[in-house]
């Protein structure tokens, strides 16, 4: 039984063409790009080519706007900390409650250090209120940071519009686009986005490589100082193999961009409809009209996500849960809570995230595998009776302590 990987928002398989392109940079092309000799020059040229490929995928005006980092988290931290350092008189940040922990945990820490953090709330579908946003834009704000696509539900924020609104008030705009790059067409030169984070391993490049796009003329302060690499904006010897791999991955992503919104979307929709037609008391989370083409977040009521994942895993199917049970926290995911999803459903949320490697057969296998798994776990659940939620006097389950 071949395994089925539907956890591509967590990480993706490195494309074989990416691996092939990287290998020489572990062996014969080991030079330091900064060196004068030919060992260095070979690598230097390869980095330039890769930078150009990233530039094209992002639609950046200049290749010098691409700064290579170690990961999406580093890009996020660099962007926010840079804005606070570059505008010391501005001590506030606007972000959203559903950001990735790379942003939220940093903001929590900055708040302790005296920075004012405004976190935009979302509605039941995961959408923000642009009026609330507009009202928060002021000369005290150093930077706005809003994710392009939500990692758990795939819901998109109107970042181009938000960037325009920030720009009109003279405020920097950053977007964590780790989940969006390679899945959606992006053309940064036609937007007012000042900074954008992306991560290699979400688009079939290796782990350990990230990008921060910094628009020309954006006031910038580096996180890491110590060398002239990346024009002094990110010191440290370049991870040349990974950068070359990312370049190839970006070119491949560009070639497949159209299939993301056609083939992949069709597979995702088939998966969603197939599951919902066979499993009752289940629903899709997020903004179904405005979301990534590859992500399906489905809440199965009255069961807990980890059990579903363990049973799926037994059948070789890899997905992830919206519950934070495995991370040591007892609360369900902050995204589900922010959307007001009831606890009985939030704990049973499963995220299926597809990639261009997934097939129709795989989707059919998952549709067939899931209903018995949910039925098995519901038969163990005190919230379930027979084939319906337990209800009525003496039947409904209200355990001690909350």
């Amino acid at each position, binding site marked *: 039984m071949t395994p089925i990987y539907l956890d591509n928002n967590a990480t993706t398989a490195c494309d074989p063409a990416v691996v092939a392109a990287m290998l020489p940079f572990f062996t014969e092309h080991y030079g330091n790009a900064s060196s004068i000799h030919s060992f260095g020059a070979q690598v230097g040229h390869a980095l330039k080519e890769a930078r150009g490929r990233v530039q094209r995928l992002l639609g950046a005006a200049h290749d010098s706007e691409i700064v290579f980092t170690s990961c999406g988290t580093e890009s996020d931290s660099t962007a926010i900390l840079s804005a606070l350092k570059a505008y010391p008189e501005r001590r506030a940040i606007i972000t959203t409650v559903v950001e990735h922990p790379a942003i939220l945990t940093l903001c929590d820490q900055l708040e302790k250090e005296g920075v004012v953090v405004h976190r935009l709330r979302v509605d039941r579908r995961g959408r923000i209120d642009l009026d609330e946003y507009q009202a928060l834009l002021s000369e005290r704000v150093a930077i706005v940071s809003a994710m392009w696509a939500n990692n758990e539900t795939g819901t998109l924020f109107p970042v181009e519009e938000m960037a325009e609104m920030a720009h009109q008030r003279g405020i920097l705009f950053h977007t964590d686009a780790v989940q969006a790059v390679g899945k959606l067409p992006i053309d940064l030169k036609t937007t007012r986005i000042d900074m954008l984070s992306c991560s290699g391993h979400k688009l079939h490049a290796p782990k350990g490589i990230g990008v921060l796009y910094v628009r020309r003329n954006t006031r910038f302060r580096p996180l890491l100082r110590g060398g002239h690499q990346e024009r002094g904006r990110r010191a440290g010897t370049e991870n040349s193999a990974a950068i070359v791999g990312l370049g190839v991955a970006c070119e491949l992503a560009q070639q497949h961009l159209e299939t993301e919104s056609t083939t992949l979307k069709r597979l995702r929709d088939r998966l969603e409809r197939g599951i919902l037609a066979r499993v009752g008391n289940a629903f899709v989370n997020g903004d179904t009209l405005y979301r990534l083409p590859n992500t399906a977040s489905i809440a199965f009521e009255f069961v807990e996500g980890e059990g579903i994942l363990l049973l799926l895993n037994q059948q070789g199917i890899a997905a992830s849960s919206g519950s934070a049970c*495995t991370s040591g926290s007892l609360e369900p995911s902050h995204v589900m809570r922010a959307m007001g999803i009831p606890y009985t459903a939030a704990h049973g949320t499963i995220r299926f995230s597809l990639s261009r490697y997934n097939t129709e057969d795989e989707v059919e296998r998952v549709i067939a595998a899931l209903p018995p798994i949910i039925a098995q776990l519901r038969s*163990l*659940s*005190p919230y379930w009776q027979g084939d319906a939620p337990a209800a009525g006097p003496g039947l409904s389950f209200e*355990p001690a302590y909350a």
Partner: protein
Amino acid sequence: MWDYSEKVREHFFNPRNAGPLAGANGVGDVGSIRCGDALRLMLRVDPETEIIEAAHFQTFGCGSAIASSSALTEIIKRKTLDEALKVSNQDIADYLDGLPPEKMHCSVMGREALQAAVANYRGEVWRDEHEEGDLVCKCFAIDAAMIERTIRDNRLQTMSDVTNYTKAGGGCSACHEKIEDILIAVNGRLPPAEPQRQIAKTAPAAAPVKPRLSNYQRIRKIEETLEALRPALQRDHGDVTLVEVDGKRIFVALSGACQGCQMEAATIGGIQQKLVEVLGELVQVLPAAALARD
């Protein structure tokens, strides 16, 4: 992702005694949907002998919650109520060959469901004193609520106070920032500065001058100190014995759960600190294995 024992996995995939129990005369419902764990334990008790004839469960929760419930029903079957009540959450975890620290609360929930079901059978009202927060110290499975309460009750001031009272932070030390945040939140101010390196506390200059001990007295003192430390280790299913004293080097054998435990180095460090205090001289405590290498 999951560091579950074979036994946990087996009980999750093939749960024993799952589903409603006909003729149940003791039912305990515990847990909370907010926390993502809830358990109904159903007992059929023989009123004559008070022997549990059958025990069934229904659980909403993660893999280890289901496995812990299944294990609980197997452990208490055919026990009398009084015997069953002696089952601790550690017994449930042991039966499953251990649970990851993040999941120990699953075994606690099992134990509470048992108390609730017995109380229900006896017509008593069971009161929960359960309080649980985010897991802070992963090495010793100590949560925020426990740390907060201990700081408040004992007016703790420093990071090392918290470690001494709760063990939290005594291992890998990755949680020290979180613990300091709790100290600030409870005490409303920064914890007083501690020496940057713990070793400074035990530097010989700081120790009072003690009369020189004879070899016999010295070894007796070492033995007495180890003896005093043993109950704490035994509580964690471990033990320590003295193997050899070679000048400043003291060799000990750790056994039981201490052996090969990720905390072995921390345990030996703790023993060393204690011995340095008691003997008033700098000594080095080494595992017996180091003696073999000499």
